[in-house]
């Protein structure tokens, strides 16, 4: 009457693909259906260059959604991802353009500022016991205002920082394999996804992320310093927003201080479409990635088809509901 001894443990990658693939099969299926559907309707859709455009369009929202995933798995929510991204891009702008520091320092400063702001949100949530919704809503407003204050309400251009726009637009892969000029922004998205996935699946931090979302009180009564871990997770999410800030700044070759509002809903939508539950305790980065891709494919496809704007919105809403419904229906079966 003991546990049967398991088959030998799978390699990490095998496990990643396996649990991901079988759990997320249907969200993935929705993605495929969309891709096939659009290809049939529009001959222009399935071009390499459009696929790359879609990936490029996924990159910023994808990175933000990964940050949001971490927080959502702990049972929280992060409404500040969008404006934090903006604030970190402005930070990089100030460091690079106004202070004239070298490029790596700009990147580091953005990520560090992201981590710091995330830490603040984490402090509000963990130590001051403010509900995450309010703590990050407050943070969202504060950061929105600060971005305008710090930048002087005008964009900061990176024209004096050669190579800055290459961070997102250049293509290391394209230099090696010229036929797949996948931009670095997309590469960075995937690197962030793999690292985040590893952290979630393989490290203490990730373990506590799930545990906090599952039953915070039980974790606390296990003698774990839950506050500290929670703050660490918010800080990590903030740092990832910092990466998003660099990506968007590089793509626009400027820090746009007025941007960012509304990005949080889109990021959270990608997370939830990807099967992560808003009540915490479960979720995968792979799912989030697929969720973000679904949204990007949908928007791009409808635009390529030149569907009237108002109908684009209607169709997007309907398809999001359908995609998640298909996923739910499958999961209930098993």
């Amino acid at each position, binding site marked *: 009457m003991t*546990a049967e*001894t398991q088959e030998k443990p799978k390699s990490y990658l095998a496990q990643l693909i396996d649990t991901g693939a079988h759990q997320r099969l249907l969200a993935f299926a929705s993605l495929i259906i969309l891709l096939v559907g659009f290809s049939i309707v529009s001959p222009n859709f399935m071009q390499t260059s459009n696929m790359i455009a879609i990936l490029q369009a996924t990159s910023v929202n994808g990175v933000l959604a990964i940050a949001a995933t971490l927080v959502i798995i702990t049972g929280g929510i992060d409404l500040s991802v969008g404006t934090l991204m903006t604030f970190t891009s402005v930070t990089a702008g100030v460091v690079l353009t106004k202070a004239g520091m070298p490029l790596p320092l700009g990147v580091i400063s953005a990520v560090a500022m992201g981590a710091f702001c995330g830490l603040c949100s984490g402090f509000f949530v963990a130590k001051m016991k403010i509900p995450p919704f309010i703590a990050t809503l407050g943070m969202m407003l504060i950061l929105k205002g600060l971005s305008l204050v710090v930048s002087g309400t005008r964009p900061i251009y990176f024209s004096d920082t050669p190579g800055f726009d290459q961070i997102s637009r250049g293509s290391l892969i394209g230099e090696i394999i010229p036929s797949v000029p996948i931009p670095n922004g997309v590469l960075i998205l995937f690197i962030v996804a793999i690292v985040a996935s590893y952290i979630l699946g393989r*490290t*203490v931090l990730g373990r506590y992320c799930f545990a906090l979302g599952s039953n915070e009180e*039980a974790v*606390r*009564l*296990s003698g774990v310093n839950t506050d500290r871990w929670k703050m660490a997770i918010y800080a990590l999410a903030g740092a990832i927003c910092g990466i998003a800030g660099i990506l968007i700044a590089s793509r626009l070759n400027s820090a746009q201080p007025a941007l960012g509002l509304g990005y949080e809903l889109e990021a959270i939508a990608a997370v939830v479409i990807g099967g992560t539950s808003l009540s915490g*305790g479960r979720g995968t980065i792979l799912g989030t990635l697929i969720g973000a891709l679904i949204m990007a494919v949908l928007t791009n496809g409808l635009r390529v088809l030149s569907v009237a704007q108002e109908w684009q919105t209607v169709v997007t809403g309907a398809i999001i509901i359908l995609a998640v419904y298909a996923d739910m229906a499958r999961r209930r079966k098993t």
Partner: protein
Amino acid sequence: MNTIVEMTGIEKRFPGVHALKNVQFDLREGEVHALMGENGAGKSTLMKILSGIYKRDGGALRINGDPADPNSPREAQDLGIGIIHQELSLMNDLTAAQNIFIGREPRRSFGRLDEAALNQGAADIFATMNLNLDPRAIVGSLTIAKQQMIEIAKALSYRSKVLVMDEPTAALNEAEIAELFVIIRQLKAEGVGIIYISHKMDELKRIADRVTIMRDGEYVGTFEAADTPISTVISLMVGREVTEKPLHVPDTSGAEVALEVTGLTRGRDIQDVSFSVKKGEILGFAGLMGAGRTEVARAIFGADPRDSGEIRVHGHLCHIKTPSDAVAAGIGYLSEDRKHFGVAVGMDVRANIAMASLRRFTSRIGVLQERMMREVSVKYINRLGIRTPSDQQEVRLLSGGNQQKVVIAKWLLRDCDILFFDEPTRGIDVGAKSEIYKLLEDLAQQGRAIIVISSELPEVMRLSHRIAVMCEGRLTGILPGGATTTQEEIMQLATQRHAVMAPTGAVQ
């Protein structure tokens, strides 16, 4: 007597578990039919099939001789079947009365509620149960024992012909159990058939007419309770003899004091509690429901704030503010409420067992060593006999008793010097119970200080080297363990109300 329920050839499979194999069961009018078996034997599953929560994979169900197939709790209710679930399923934000009458609120026109009638109805039920409880109390703020009483009241309010009670007494103390048995006898007299599941063997003789035994999802047999010795039942359940060693109280007079608590106070729940535990000693805490034993443990552990009081561990003053401080000082606390404070039900067995000791399985850069965790968790699964298809099964899918074992494994693995066990054997079967007693004794022998809080007097008496008794937030006395102390002495201290005498709170 008519047979009201008849189940034959029942089959049920879950992914990785064949939970019921060709099981049969029948219930007559006006009898108490006990259903016995080890943790994970399939008792709750069988009852969930009867009450329309699970669909059976095979077999037949007859109610009053007619084939029946309840597909939802509602349909089962309509067939006259009521159930008290093993896991509390209450709405914590609602009041006691609102919980009892959910779905059947007394209404006035336009869907308006008749709150007065609702509260009166609940008060009436509480009165028949001899229960002192405000119908307007918010359920989430009550102790589990009281929540359990509300579940019972709710089931009674349906006036079912068949009443399933899945471990109703796991969270109750002696006095409450006695009250419950009065109610059960009353129901019996009214012709209600009662299916009674419990791991407390003595209750078999006190209340059951017949007993059906299950093992590993299979039907073993049905016997007249009066003619069957407990030892036979146990060996049929467990498949072997369970021998109970008598308590041996070691001489700890020379041992170092491991934990010393002085003047612990918090509001009215804890009033000036002082005691100490030595290395190698098992200190039992007895008392009635609401005596404040849990509060004492939680306050020491840093789970709740305290107004005053000093805690010394191995002679050093400790400033414990949070559970992590306590664990760092070598104090562990196994909570009485496993669902809320014990396990993360959505996570797997391995993760839960390792939860308090993750640091041990973490490399310097924070990477988890799954292989080590697996080895350790499999070790504890075997040692405690946790019935699970693998250590990667979600805890939510385990039977109640097996979940409790997971929590125990978590604290055994953490290996604290001072361990509080609050109702450690709640919902655990007899065989496993004696295993756990042995484990606790081993831990004490290794020099740890063990504090056991239990509402089962026999358990306290079976385990404790000394017995602390609490009443209404005060420590009313500490008695020596072993055969010299009687139940009466403990009960006398446990009911020593404030008016009678000032706290004796003896520090030795």
